[in-house]
């Protein structure tokens, strides 16, 4: 083997190791990626499909990932782009009037209905079911839901969410704020119905 071939062989071996490391790390994040995907789409099947499409693309373009950066955010960026490409339908901006309610909306409603003790942990769980939460999230308009799911379910920072969705951080904050208020309003409607 000549010197050039030896150098080539070393380069290929290094690259192959890098790729395997990338793949192992990406697969290790699959459950966390799925948890976010599941709340961005309507069904389990769609979520599985979306995650698989994300990994197909990630494995192909692994070289564009910079080692040492946030791989979970990198994967979610691919995923949210694919989800947009799926052509989800454009939604009307929700009625803004109820958003005049404050952040304490749900707390105030529960407290008004049942007194301050309603704000205890057990009472929250008693009043809200898992189905309420899943249902309320799924009813949020997409733009709000993306941000609420990334920050509240995926536990991404505002900055990561901004990068994933390719929007300014101020947009993340305002969508999060309005999205959470809408979510609480829906939870209040359901839990006090």
């Amino acid at each position: 083997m000549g010197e050039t071939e030896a150098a080539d062989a070393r380069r290929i071996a290094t690259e192959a190791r890098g790729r395997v490391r990338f793949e192992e790390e990406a697969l290790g994040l699959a459950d966390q990626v799925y948890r976010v995907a599941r709340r961005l789409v309507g069904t389990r099947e769609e979520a599985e499909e979306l995650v698989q499409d994300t990994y197909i693309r990630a494995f192909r373009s692994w070289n564009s990932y910079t080692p040492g950066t946030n791989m979970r955010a990198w994967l979610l960026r691919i995923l949210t782009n694919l989800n947009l490409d799926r052509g989800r339908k454009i939604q009307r901006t929700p009625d803004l009037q109820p958003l005049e309610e404050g952040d304490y909306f749900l707390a105030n409603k529960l407290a008004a209905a049942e007194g301050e003790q309603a704000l205890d942990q057990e009472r929250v769980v008693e009043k809200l079911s898992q189905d309420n939460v899943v249902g309320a999230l799924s009813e949020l308009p997409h733009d709000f839901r993306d941000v609420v799911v990334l920050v509240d379910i995926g536990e991404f920072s505002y900055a990561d969410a901004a990068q994933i969705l390719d929007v300014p951080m101020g947009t993340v904050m305002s969508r999060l704020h309005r999205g959470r208020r809408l979510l609480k309003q829906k939870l209040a409607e359901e839990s006090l119905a």
Partner: protein
Amino acid sequence: MSDHDPGCERCEELLQGYLDRDLAPDEVVVAEGHLDGCDYCRRRYRFEERLRRYIRVSASERMPAGLLAKLTELRDERPAL
């Protein structure tokens, strides 16, 4: 607490950022200072914190069995180096 402490409104504004640990240091001081002295806001702060945890836990669904194997198989479809 007084029924409507003038600080409550400002505190309510800061609370979401405080819960997200995304406030500037001077805002943290304002929020914590108010929470220390206001029972009304403290109760609501605890409620919001629990509500978030509850939302996270109840909306989080584990990856279905079999998905990881499918993803692992996708590696074989990648182009050669």
